[in-house]
């Protein structure tokens, strides 16, 4: 009996010494969302980082975008959370402002690193005087038009609101002759509050409306251009019946299914959409064009703003290893790494000058549209409450207006009032 006990004790004592890299610095890296090939690329990149930095071990976790704010707030408020994480750049205001993210501009080589990026991209990571991350990828919201349906009708992708409305009306058809339309001009992502706001706001921006004043003190969702944009979509739904009737329940999967099966002709999307469509329906073609502008602004269509959404990598302010996290961040986001966004369809646009100006970039189909749109695109206002306003106030009121429960002007007045109360701390 005794030899067995001795052997077990020796084994128990010996096991810890077999652990890999037990002196290594451990960095937890959370990755939200991303297409499978992006996740695979990240894994490979992290592996090569570990080879180059034997003293650092990176533990990667894959998470869903759907729960990002809930997960991060729950972790950060407990003083935990990953060392590095990819998040929307506008979290710089919400989380950076709350002291959860490390100001990366305090690293001595930040000025040099900053020079890698297109200025508007790195600026999107700034809140106040600090930069809270490095750009990972950029997105401009555009209009995607089902090529097969447009070509069949012999019409070109719309540039103005009246062309957009006319195209949607024309593309809404009863194709099987049962008296009920089964093909619609426009599909909207109504079942996802955040996603819906991201798709409607480009119309507001194109009409010159802004969700908030530049000093971030006054909510302006009820600006005339915004109300007009909402009225356009409401009229398309209620008068023309050219928007899919069940849009309030749709997630991105349903939008993709409808688009791929020719039941929807247009949708507001971004660079991820080509990959999604390719996965579902290989070879399906679509036009990628800017979100239409109001007719009276047609002359300035090329410079009208759309919504810019950017993903950045941030470092947890409570990370015990900020220096090592910064090294990993730079490795994941340097100019050489950024070329992956050009060489593969990873669902977004590169952010460094070197990648975007490379000869390989010039050969990509949609990239010029995205780069052109990004040059004039605007992010959500950098207010810590903006995401809550967009998801929890703007979307419900806008959806009520679209289905006719309230007028567009009334809905935006109500949304503005509630959002103003929120930023003034009265709610």
């Amino acid at each position: 009996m005794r030899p067995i006990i001795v052997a077990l004790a020796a084994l128990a004592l010996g096991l810890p010494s077999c652990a890999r890299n037990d002196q290594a610095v451990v960095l937890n890296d959370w990755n939200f969302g991303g297409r499978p090939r992006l996740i695979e690329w990240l894994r490979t990149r992290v592996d090569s980082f570990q080879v180059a930095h034997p003293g650092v071990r990176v533990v990667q976790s894959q998470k869903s975008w759907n729960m990002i704010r809930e997960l991060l707030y729950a972790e950060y408020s407990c003083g935990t959370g990953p060392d590095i994480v990819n998040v929307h750049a506008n979290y710089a205001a919400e989380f950076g402002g709350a002291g959860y993210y490390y100001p990366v501009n305090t690293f001595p080589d930040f000025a040099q690193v900053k020079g890698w990026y297109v200025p508007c991209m790195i600026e999107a990571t700034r809140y106040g005087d600090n930069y809270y991350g490095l750009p990972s990828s950029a997105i401009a919201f555009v209009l995607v038009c089902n090529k097969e349906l447009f070509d069949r009708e012999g019409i070109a992708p719309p540039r103005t609101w009246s062309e957009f409305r006319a195209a949607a009306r024309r593309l809404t058809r009863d194709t099987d002759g049962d008296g009920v339309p089964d093909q619609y001009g426009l599909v909207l992502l109504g079942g996802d509050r955040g996603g819906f706001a991201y798709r409607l706001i480009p119309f507001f921006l194109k009409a010159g409306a802004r969700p908030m004043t530049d000093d971030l003190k006054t909510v302006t969702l009820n600006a005339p251009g915004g109300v007009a944009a909402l009225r356009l979509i409401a009229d398309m739904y209620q008068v023309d019946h050219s928007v899919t009737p069940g849009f309030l329940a749709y997630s991105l999967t349903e939008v993709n299914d409808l688009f791929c099966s020719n039941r929807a002709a247009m949708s507001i999307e971004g660079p991820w959409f080509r990959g999604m469509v390719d996965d579902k329906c290989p070879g399906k073609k679509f036009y990628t064009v800017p979100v239409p502008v109001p007719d009276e602004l047609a002359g300035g269509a090329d410079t009208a703003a759309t919504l810019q959404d950017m993903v950045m990598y941030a470092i947890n302010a409570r990370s015990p290893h900020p220096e090592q996290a910064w090294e990993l961040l730079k490795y994941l986001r340097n100019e050489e790494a950024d070329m992956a966004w050009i060489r593969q369809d990873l669902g977004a646009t590169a952010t460094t000058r070197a990648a975007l100006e490379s000869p390989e970039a010039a050969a990509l189909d949609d990239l010029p549209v995205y780069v052109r749109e990004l040059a004039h695109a605007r992010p959500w206002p950098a207010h810590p409450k903006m995401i809550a306003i967009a998801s929890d106030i703007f979307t419900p009121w806008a959806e009520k207006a679209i289905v006719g429960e309230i007028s567009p002007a009334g809905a935006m007045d109500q949304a503005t009032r509630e959002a103003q109360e929120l930023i003034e701390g009265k709610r």
Partner: protein
Amino acid sequence: MKRSLPYLLLAPALLFTAFVLVYPLGQNLLNSFRAVHLVQGTGGWTGLDNYRHVFADREFTLALRNTAGYALGGTLLALAGGLAVALLLERATTRATPLVTCLLSLPWVISPVVAGFAWKWMLNDHFGILNAWLAGAGIVNPGTSWLGNPHTALLCAMVARAWQFYPFAMVMFLAGLESIPAEQYEAASVDGASAVRRFLAITLPNLRPVSSVLLLLGVIWSFNDFTTVFVMTRGGPIDASMVLPVLVREFSFVHFDLGKGSALSIVIFAALVLLSALYLRVLVGRERA
């Protein structure tokens, strides 16, 4: 040692209960009287402010109404379905009956998340099988949106909930039917009572204790059901199917106001305690009878 042994044996279970039930409940109760915000941190005591905010919230009234309708409607639907199937199974006793009973019980053992997604896809306006059948039969227009329509979304969740609960009701009713003395039916037949009369005068009164227990259990479980509604509609469209458990999540993890979320969960807890007390009373009454 002999005297303390029972307590020692009980200790693990008591510790486990204290850790997973008493502590969270106590913490939740404390949070409901404090300003606990995931973004702004924990503030001081706020008395009944969180409760006042909950009751003043327009979503609360809507969610309370929806929850009551969902719990009661879904349970009644399940009970009606369960009783109908139980009656059929009791009448048609063949060698296949156990297998059929087993198959009919499947919804009860399917994970609510899986069931929610399955119903979501069956109800899809363009690709759902239900629309294909109903439109094929000329009952609805093709492309009818069920979950995207504020007037039908909650009803759909209710149907899905009834589908999940009816097998339990079926099994309970089957047991109840088997316990009804055959003499009662024989006497009624001799008196010339019709099948409907026998059902109304013998079957239903005999099943009353089972029905009341099932009704209470169904309402309690549905009142507390988060999964079905969250998976199918997330409380939408435009909050039309918002129920109290989903609203707790909204307060706690969308608005990050844990104080308000805790207050609402205590309100739900109080309602469930009342319902459970009623259930126990019915159960005791039944045993005495």
